[in-house]
């Protein structure tokens, strides 16, 4: 085979028909760039979500009691007493038990007023929430037990309220419901959520998120829908979680089937399979555009073969073998297609990179996706070039030489 000569021939033929070749490539460019962009965006999202769950902790679980008739009385809800019973029954198997309670509040320092949410943390808060404390420290278990009026502010809120982050020990007037409390700042944290997570959690830059001992906003006698807990990493989350569920069913006098238990691991698995399912579906749709691009190449190659019928006749008369003609046209279609694939790859990565800049995320472009895309595009070119090339190679030289 005359690979080198045929590559030169193909390149000059593409050069001669610049516009046509570009339009033919466009199908491949759009197809490949959308496949790469979609698959890479999916991978980026998945790795971002996986990271979020790492922050939350894979030991986290929660449960609630389902009412069969949708009517919830107090015995379906959890109180501080239920929490204590669970803590006592499971001892060191659970590192954290709490309600994930929150309360709307307003903070005032002089003329600066800010609205937001107070989030309650129970004993061993670091087990539940990985806060990046940059000043001060987290609450102690004693702080929680005694419902001390302490607060941990976010860096930016501290700046807004006090004009500084060195605010440990200062107090802030906070209105919670109808009550007004003076809370002492014991720590300042930095928000590490990615832009994606902020987007998903719907957090609002104008509102504050501050942490307080849970007992401060969840006094004895209140009740909550859901009980959150962290399992000691030495034990299996789902196993202990199911034990907790059985125990809760017993103390609340409910059937075990009514107690719904979920773990972060399960959720992560669900989201992960959802995301991969989604990118598979969208990827398949994008792959269809590759087939459409391939048909475009076949169409143009057929036109090109017909146009060059006489040239094919001349080549055959001069001694070109069937395989010489076949490889000439196959290489031409493979080059058009692979060039389209390469441009499409660059464009796809570019789109993902620009998208990543907007959501402030490190984009994940797997090299195997790129290799697969370019190899696939060359294969599309060869596959859809095969018929036109075979048509050219089979041409009868006498007929071809007579072609006007």
């Amino acid at each position, binding site marked *: 085979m005359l690979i080198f000569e045929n590559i030169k021939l193909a390149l*000059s033929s593409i050069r001669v028909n610049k516009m046509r070749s570009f339009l033919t490539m466009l199908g491949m460019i759009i197809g490949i760039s959308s496949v790469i962009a979609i698959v890479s965006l999916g991978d980026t999202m998945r790795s971002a979500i996986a990271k979020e769950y790492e922050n939350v902790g894979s030991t986290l679980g929660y449960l609630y009691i389902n009412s069969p008739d949708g009517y919830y009385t107090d015995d379906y809800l959890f109180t501080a007493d239920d929490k204590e019973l669970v803590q006592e029954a499971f001892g060191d198997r659970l590192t954290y038990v709490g309600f994930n309670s929150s309360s709307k509040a307003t903070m005032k320092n002089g003329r600066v007023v800010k609205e937001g949410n107070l989030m309650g943390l129970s004993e061993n808060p670091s087990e539940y929430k990985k806060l990046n404390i940059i000043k001060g420290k987290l609450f102690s278990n004693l702080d929680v037990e005694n419902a001390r009026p302490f607060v941990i502010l976010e860096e930016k809120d501290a700046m807004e309220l006090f004009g500084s982050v060195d605010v440990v020990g200062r107090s802030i007037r906070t209105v919670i419901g109808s009550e007004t409390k003076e809370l002492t700042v014991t720590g300042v944290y930095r928000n590490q959520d990615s832009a994606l997570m902020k987007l998903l959690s719907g957090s609002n830059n104008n509102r504050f998120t501050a942490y307080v001992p849970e007992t401060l906003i969840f006094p004895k006698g209140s009740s909550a829908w859901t009980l959150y807990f962290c399992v000691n990493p030495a034990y299996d989350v789902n196993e202990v979680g199911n034990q907790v569920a059985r125990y809760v069913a017993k103390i609340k006098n409910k059937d075990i089937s009514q107690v719904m238990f979920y773990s972060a691991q399960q959720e992560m698995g669900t989201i992960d399979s959802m995301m991969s399912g989604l990118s598979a579906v969208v990827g398949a749709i994008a792959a269809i555009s590759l087939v459409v691009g391939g048909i475009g190449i076949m169409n143009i190659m057929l036109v090109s073969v017909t146009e060059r019928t006489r*040239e094919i006749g*001349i080549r055959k008369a*001069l*001694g070109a*073998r*069937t395989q010489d003609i076949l490889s000439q046209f196959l290489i031409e279609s493979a080059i058009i297609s692979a060039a389209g694939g390469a441009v499409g790859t660059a464009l796809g990565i570019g789109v993902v990179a620009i998208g990543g800049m907007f959501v402030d995320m490190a984009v994940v472009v797997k090299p195997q996706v790129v290799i697969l895309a370019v190899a696939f595009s060359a294969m599309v070119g060869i596959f859809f070039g095969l018929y036109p090339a075979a048509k050219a190679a089979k041409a009868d030289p006498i007929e071809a*030489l007579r072609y006007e």
Partner: protein
Amino acid sequence: MAMRNIIEIQNLNKIYDTGAIQVHALKDVNLTIQEGEYVAIMGKSGSGKSTLMNILGCLDRPTSGSYVLDGIDVAKENPKQISYIRNQKIGFVFQSFNLIPRTSALKNVELPMIYGRVPAKERLERAKELLEKVGLGDRLHHMPNEISGGQKQRIAVARALANRPAILLADEPTGNLDTPSSVEVMNLFTQLNQEGVTVIVVTHEDDIAAFTNRIIRFQDGQMIEDKRRGEHADF
């Protein structure tokens, strides 16, 4: 001078089967051409001369009979070897030049050598040498659409000679040329023949045939005349 037979044709028949009717294009043709001959094949259209030309050029196969070219029984060869024979044994010159468009004179002359797997450097030297031989040493990089018909045909002759073929086969080589260009091209054939190249020209013009040393005339698929220079009053 002991001459070798370069073409031996025996009882050659060509029948075109178009379904409804059968056309007997060549009937029992027997023909021998020796190395170094300068032959004109003449006849009106439909006489079978183009069919013979296609068979001689290995573009078509006979229905029956044998055709031996330079010692090779062509009928027995497979398509790959037929391509090889076309490439190595036959140099074509066509009425309509048949240069590859948008391709320089040099590249056109190189083409048979590309298919003959001649190394690039040798190819380039030979192509230059041939173009100089046909008087186009100053037109190496011109495209076919930038030069005159006579020049195109001279490029085609250079291309036909690229692989030093056993026969130069010209099908109405002057059909698209004016008289001065025709004379120029025929003089080139005469010169090549004097250098030892076997030249076969298919034509219907007597004044073109007059350049050659042997005239074979066809009518209705049969050879009706075969005369050599000196054997006839006209010659």
